[in-house]
């Protein structure tokens, strides 16, 4: 292993690879920080360039660019309330809350540093446990996926402010939006009203932009809120270290949970952030501060996010099962460069595998200086009067939702859902559960129908396999806990004297 590591270091620490990593990271930072542009787009744009590179720089370009783009997706979330990924939607209220308190630099600093830590933790996990985690992930069938996605949905209800009942209604609205389009089993159109564009379903990116950013612009317009003056400090990361060490348990727990969940093909990163955010809220001494600009959940979910990003490469590299579009693109690049994914990647050419791991380390370390720059620049954004800033954000909303499919349909979705979110929010309904419903709805449905086909309609099938039984038990306990809590607080309201 030491020989392989030395060889790997030789492959990574040379002028070509290092230049590629820095340039790809800068590109990823730009793409990630632009609302509506995604890590997938960034990776896809890089593919043609990688044709002219050696294998290790080629894969390094994809990895460092996507790691940076996904983390940088937190920046518009913190500054403008436009989350870059479904994962950052979990904690966007806290990040934006900090910005509204004048602490945008601190919010970005927390996100970036927790992400860098999570990424490095994920690296350590990959180094030690990649084959084991890959084997573990292979145990997950549709039964386990069903419970995991239901667990994720339950978390959204637990963490939402405004009460459990309203959180549940928000979630159901999201699940309904996920129903629009062709059904995954037989391809029957649902709620499409014969409109061809609706049969492709409602993409979460215009939904997210509309429900968070547009709704916020509408609220600002009504309240005529002035720009938030940002605290002038020489070092935007001041206080970040103290916050991270204060919430070190969250930091480690987020990274650990993220590493394990991230290894599941397809859903890891998004679910990880939601589960850890709600874990942070449930175990916090001050849960009432969540959602108002409190760093605790930000630390845990931020760490989980990037840890999951690292370990999401495990199933792709070990078994050739890519979980999402980004890893699929990377697997394509691996194939083209003669580094076929599979167990032989670890055995016959381990230096290539370790080189990939070293790239992870560098990409995650680069997050800190790049994030520092972003945080310094960010302060200036709020010197612009709010009305001008709103106009610019609106422009980004339109461009971002247009760019998903290059149709005005996405803009219409963004506008429609934005107005709905504005109305819901003024009645104190949480928005985040709607987004999670849209993202996880198809997975819940598909894993349910697949499982029921396998079990021939026998619901006990969901408890037949050991991991599924444990996940199912935990989920049902959480539901019972939620129900009991709701009954208890309703009683207390009915009899205030007791």
């Amino acid at each position, binding site marked *: 292993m030491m020989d392989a590591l030395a060889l790997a270091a030789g492959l990574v620490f040379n002028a070509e690879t290092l230049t590629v990593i820095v340039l790809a990271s800068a590109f990823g930072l730009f793409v990630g920080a632009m609302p509506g542009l995604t890590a997938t787009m960034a990776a896809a744009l890089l593919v043609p360039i990688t044709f002219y590179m050696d294998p290790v720089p080629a894969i390094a370009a994809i990895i460092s660019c996507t790691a940076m783009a996904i983390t940088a997706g937190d920046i518009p979330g913190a500054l403008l309330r436009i989350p870059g990924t479904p994962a950052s939607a979990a904690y966007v209220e806290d990040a934006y809350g900090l910005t509204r308190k004048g602490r945008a630099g601190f919010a970005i600093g927390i996100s970036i540093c927790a992400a860098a830590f999570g990424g490095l933790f994920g690296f350590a996990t990959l180094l030690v446990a990649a084959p084991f985690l890959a084997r573990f992930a292979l145990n997950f069938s549709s*039964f386990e996926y069903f419970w995991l996605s239901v667990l994720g949905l339950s978390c959204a209800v637990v963490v939402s402010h405004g009460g459990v009942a309203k959180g549940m209604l928000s979630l159901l609205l999201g699940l309904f939006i996920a129903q629009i389009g062709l059904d995954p089993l037989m*391809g029957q159109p649902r709620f499409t009203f014969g409109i061809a564009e609706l*049969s492709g379903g409602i993409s979460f990116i215009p939904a997210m932009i509309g429900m968070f950013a547009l709704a916020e612009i509408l609220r600002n317009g009504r309240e005529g809120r002035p720009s938030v003056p940002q605290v002038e400090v020489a070092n935007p990361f001041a206080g970040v270290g103290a916050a991270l060490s204060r919430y070190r348990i969250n930091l480690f727990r987020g990274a650990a949970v993220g590493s394990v969940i991230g290894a599941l*093909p397809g859903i890891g990163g998004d679910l990880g952030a939601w589960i850890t955010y709600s874990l942070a809220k449930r175990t916090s001494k001050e849960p009432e501060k969540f959602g108002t600009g409190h760093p605790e959940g930000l630390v845990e979910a931020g760490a989980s996010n990037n840890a999951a990003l690292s370990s999401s490469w495990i199933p792709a590299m070990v078994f050739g*099962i890519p979980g999402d579009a980004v890893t699929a693109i990377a697997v394509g690049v691996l*194939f083209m460069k003669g580094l076929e994914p599979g167990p032989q990647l670890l055995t016959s050419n381990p230096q290539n595998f370790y080189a990939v791991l070293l790239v992870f380390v560098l990409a995650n370390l680069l997050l800190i200086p790049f994030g520092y720059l972003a945080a310094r620049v960010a302060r200036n954004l709020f010197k612009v009067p709010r009305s001008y800033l709103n106009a610019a954000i609106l422009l980004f909303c339109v461009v971002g939702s247009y760019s998903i499919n290059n149709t005005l349909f996405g803009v219409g979705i963004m506008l429609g859902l934005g107005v709905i979110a504005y109305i819901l929010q003024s009645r104190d309904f949480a928005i985040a559960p709607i987004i999670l419903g849209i993202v996880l709805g198809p997975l819940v449905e598909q894993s349910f129908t697949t499982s029921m086909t*396998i079990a021939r309609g026998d619901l006990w099938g969901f408890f037949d396999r050991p991991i599924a039984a444990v996940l199912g038990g935990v989920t049902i306990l959480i539901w019972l806990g939620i129900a009991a809590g709701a009954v208890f607080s309703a009683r207390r309201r009915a009899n205030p004297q007791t």
Partner: protein
Amino acid sequence: MRTVLTTALAVFGLAAASATALADFPDRPVTVIVPWSAGGGTDATGRIIATMLEERLGQPFNVVNRTGGGGIVGHTTIKDADPDGYTIGILTTELSMYEAVGSAKLNFADYSLIGLYNSDPSAIFVKADSDFQTIADLADAVKADPQAIQASGANFGGVNHLSWVSMVQGLGLDGAASSWVPAEGGAPALQLLASGAIDVAVVQFPEAQALMDAGEIRALATLGSEPNPKHPDVPPVTEALGIEFSIAGWRGVGGPAGMPDDITAILTTELEKIVASDAFRDKMGALNYGVVWAGGEDFTEYLARRGEAFGAAISAAGLGQ
């Protein structure tokens, strides 16, 4: 006079503009729709084609996975795209079957056909620790109770499903009596097999290669009359069970019907060069995909014949409308 001049200028300008538009095709990025999930065989070969078209034509060919409804979503998206040549897609075997199964009104006539580049028989896989050591063991178990063996590999009526039904039928059973778990392509079905949720996966060799190398799954038989050249030790079902078997998956490139003939011709010419190139054969060979070529009219004829053959198989299997 002035009006005439303006009109003449306008007409001339328009003609010049459209002439350049054709000569320059493509002058902006082209979207390549893959109707199956990332990581499956269609995705892998589609990305190779897209890359090579990009090299030859000098514009990005961006692969977009539009999954769902057993490929219906993706195929419909290709059909409904603007027929300007800037949205094309990978067409797959399922297109030969949607109408016969009654799942969608889609057939090859809805597309401008560019070229066929691949054809592969599927194979039968079991988990490494499965009780079935040979295809004959599995055949006995299926004969004893076709419902007891859970198989997956595609949606209802997908080519892997039809292959499975045909094999069950070849064993002298009612094909419609077999059990099938619908999945969005090869990768999710392999995940189900490796996790032990199902007994059999019917997928193609390249999709299963990494899991075979890892010793997680085994191949029992190739669903064809010839052994796969890369896996000579895996018996074809014709030899092992005496079943005549001719259903095989195919993959080709097409765009929405009504694309300008010269743009279709450009794409067909380039695709033919790609399929004939050593680089393409090497890449497909490394991934274990069979290379075939049929362009333009030949592709249309190929699909017309497939449509009939699959239609017959589907109604025999009791899946038709």
